[in-house]
């Protein structure tokens, strides 16, 4: 056994999806059951096509507030009683909203599954949104938004999606002070009525479940009589053509510049997705990526320099994210743009490509290690309209990425010429450096 050379190890094994049972109830509710006995737990997701993209004009944050208020009282349970019943079974119950979906997550010790399903169904179907809770939500969300807006990374993320997606509703994923002011109980009730229907939802149950027949009986007992309804179509998937723009959000006193550079990309179903995923991984998807090695480890400009591909149901984003000290803004952006350009112009070597494929396939398995991780992936696929076999085929799709396709994806989605640049920081210190890249639109941090 040599100590001077790294050990040889067998080839990486691809992910093996555990046995998954899928069915659809008469109400249209899709049900996914996964038997997983390693822990005495059941993990659940009830996901709806009800994300922030369904927020009506001027009511940004409605999906988010609906999710927060779902657990604040039902026809038969006050908020307090709900909280106490959840705690009594050692459970968790929480709803959250994303651009595409509203997801109710729950978990409990395995022998309390019936009670957990009862509480989930009650919340999903019978929430009453008490006026007092709506009023408290408005007050607290307003303060939370102020706290969020005091963070540079929040401002950067908010401005970036706005520039990339407008006028599609993906452009606003957080509420505004004005939209919080307009939030009303009637609006929340209407949103629930429109979106939270069984035929617009998927239920994932994973863990130490009873026999399948018994589990299905428990599910039917709580969800079978839920009435199917007509649900609205998502907003038309019309997106602007990517073009270069530079926006500086002025945050006086910032000791660093928060930078986002990127553009509209694709969904997970698109043929370019896997080549783009590999391109992203090489550019900035890991700590051995080019951005990390160059911008951080070589130049010392940043602590965090990475890139990300975020797929949504109807579109997606590819971007570079970094924060650098004020005096190196210009060389840092130049460095990032140069790496983006290089990936589109030069074919990656076979060693770097093989390493990146291993990385993608390895972390994919690691993400699915826990019941929580697997439940979230399964819910995500259902809500993205993708088959669960996606998990089984992921590894082979990564392995099939050819260097030419990767380069083409990089040339398109990490093209510096059409990338949007958003910077948050102190105008006085940053504007002169930023103007070297073109005309800059300056906005004040609200």
């Amino acid at each position, binding site marked *: 056994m040599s100590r001077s050379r790294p050990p040889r190890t067998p080839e990486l094994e691809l992910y093996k999806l555990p046995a998954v049972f899928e069915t659809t109830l008469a109400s249209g509710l899709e049900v996914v059951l996964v038997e997983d006995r390693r822990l005495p737990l059941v993990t659940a997701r009830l996901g709806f096509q009800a994300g922030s993209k369904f927020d009506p004009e001027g009511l940004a944050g409605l999906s988010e507030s609906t999710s927060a208020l779902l657990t604040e009282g039902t026809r038969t349970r006050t908020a307090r009683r709900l909280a106490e019943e959840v*705690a009594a079974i050692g459970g968790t119950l929480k709803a959250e909203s994303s651009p595409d979906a509203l997801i109710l997550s729950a978990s409990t010790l395995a022998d309390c599954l019936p009670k957990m399903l009862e509480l989930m169904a009650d919340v999903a179907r019978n929430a009453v949104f008490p006026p007092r809770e709506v009023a408290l939500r408005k007050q607290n969300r307003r303060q939370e938004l102020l706290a969020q807006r005091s963070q540079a990374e929040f401002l950067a993320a908010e401005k970036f999606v706005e520039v990339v997606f407008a006028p599609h509703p993906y452009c606003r994923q957080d509420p505004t002070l004005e939209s919080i002011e307009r939030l009303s109980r009637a609006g929340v009730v209407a949103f629930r009525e429109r979106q939270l229907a069984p035929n617009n939802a998927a239920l994932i149950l994973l863990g130490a479940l009873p026999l399948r027949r018994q589990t299905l009986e428990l599910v039917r007992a709580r969800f079978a009589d839920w009435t199917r309804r007509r649900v609205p179509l998502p907003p038309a998937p019309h997106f602007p053509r990517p073009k270069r723009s530079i926006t500086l959000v002025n945050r006086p006193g910032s000791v*660093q510049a928060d930078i986002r550079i990127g553009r509209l990309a694709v969904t997970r179903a698109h043929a370019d997705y896997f080549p783009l995923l590999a391109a992203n991984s090489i550019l900035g998807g*890991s*700590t051995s990526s080019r951005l990390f090695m160059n911008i951080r480890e070589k130049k*010392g400009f940043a*602590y965090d320099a990475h890139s990300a591909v975020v797929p949504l149901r109807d579109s997606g984003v590819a971007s570079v994210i970094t924060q650098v000290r004020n005096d190196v803004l210009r060389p840092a952006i130049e460095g990032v743009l140069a790496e983006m350009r290089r990936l589109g112009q030069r074919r990656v070597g076979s060693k770097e490509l093989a390493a990146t494929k291993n990385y993608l396939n390895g972390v994919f*398995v690691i993400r699915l290690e826990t019941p929580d991780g697997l439940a979230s992936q399964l819910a995500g696929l259902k809500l993205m309209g993708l088959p669960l076999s996606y998990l089984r085929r992921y590894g082979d799709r990564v392995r099939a990425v050819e260097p030419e396709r990767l380069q083409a994806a990089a040339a398109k989605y990490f093209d510096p010429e059409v990338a949007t640049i958003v910077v948050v920081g102190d105008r006085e210190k940053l504007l002169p450096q930023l103007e070297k890249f073109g005309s800059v639109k300056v906005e004040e941090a609200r």
Partner: protein
Amino acid sequence: MPAEFRIPIERFTLSNGLRVILSPDHSTPVATVYLIYGVGARVEERGRTGFAHLFEHMMFQGSKNAPKGTHFKLIEANGGALNGSTHPDFTDYFEVLPSNKLAVALWLEADRMRGLQVNRANLENQRQTVKQERRLAFDNRPYAVAIVERWPQLAFRNWHNSHSIIGSFEDLDGATVADVRRFFQTYYAPNNAVLAVAGDLRPEETRRLVEAYFGDIPAQALPSPPNLTEPPQKAPRTGVHRDPLAQVPAVIVGYPGPTRRTPNYYALVMLDIVLTGGESSRFHQRLVKGRQSVIQYEANLGWPFAGPADYKDPGRYAVFLLHKPAFRSEQIVKQVEEEIRAVARAGLRRRELARARAFLRSNRVRQLQSSRTRAAALGQYELLDGNPDYVNTELDLFLAATPDEIQQAAREWLAPERRSVLEIVPGKKQEGR
């Protein structure tokens, strides 16, 4: 609730003093290597604040057979993820990998425990990276400076406990290559470390690898630890921090905590669950809902750097509360104390205690879902308690805390004269104390 599950533990010590824990679980083909060293920010010397953390960065800058960049590259090219972190009492490193790649992580950890490649260029580079980390995570972020620098200054009197864990720019600038070498030589020895490997592993094979890679790394004479004793707190302390980045007021309320693994430790953790754990807790029901004064809060024994699992005294039980501007911080503190006093006077309701126990029981199972969290718990318990089996046995010790003990914890440990309060005032001007 028959929800018990046992984490298997195989434990041995190499002749150089490296303690090793193996915990096999074959349910998914993933394994974690977790290496924890018994050195953290509390051993730092004056003029070298932030050094333990800067040193953690240097651990990724190359070793004899794995030059700069190799650590990241090898782990990731083998499908793994990695990181390290610096705490008051320890520094830890982990690699999570597909299980048939486990040997790579063991080899890398052993190579850097054997010796680092430190030079001025990579020290300078990491100095810049750490300064940028400070700007990102502290200087540009509301509440962070108050929490990480001001709060320890108010809570502790002993410099080892109260100084900044991230460090000042000035001290970071003072760090030399000789400092790095000395620190490594002193603290990064096998007899000051615990290696925990959890997940899909074969114990005999793993043991063979560990012995081959780590077995002949020489032990070092360890210095005696610094004196961390705090003088007893006899009167309340207060401080005000103006935070030019904050827009919403906040307040930190804290009390000196008990010694780890004593009955008071278990009772105080149970009390914390009753007061702050989940939406049925007293703080949520009475402050967020009832009085509508608090917007969000977080609380822990060891906050902000630790929780009950890695808490080590002297430490604090503390609560951070973001509150509505319509309330003054004194009002918030008064409301917090009223909740504590209610328990101190009247004790707990039976069902409330039952809920707290259920909460604890299921949280534990949830927290130990991944090989990484299991390995970390095993490594930390070996290092801090000399007994990794607490991962299986401590639940009963928490559940055994009686209502009287919990009531007494409220009365004695969270008594008003032991209180420290840091008020965080949103404001442009850096004035006041």
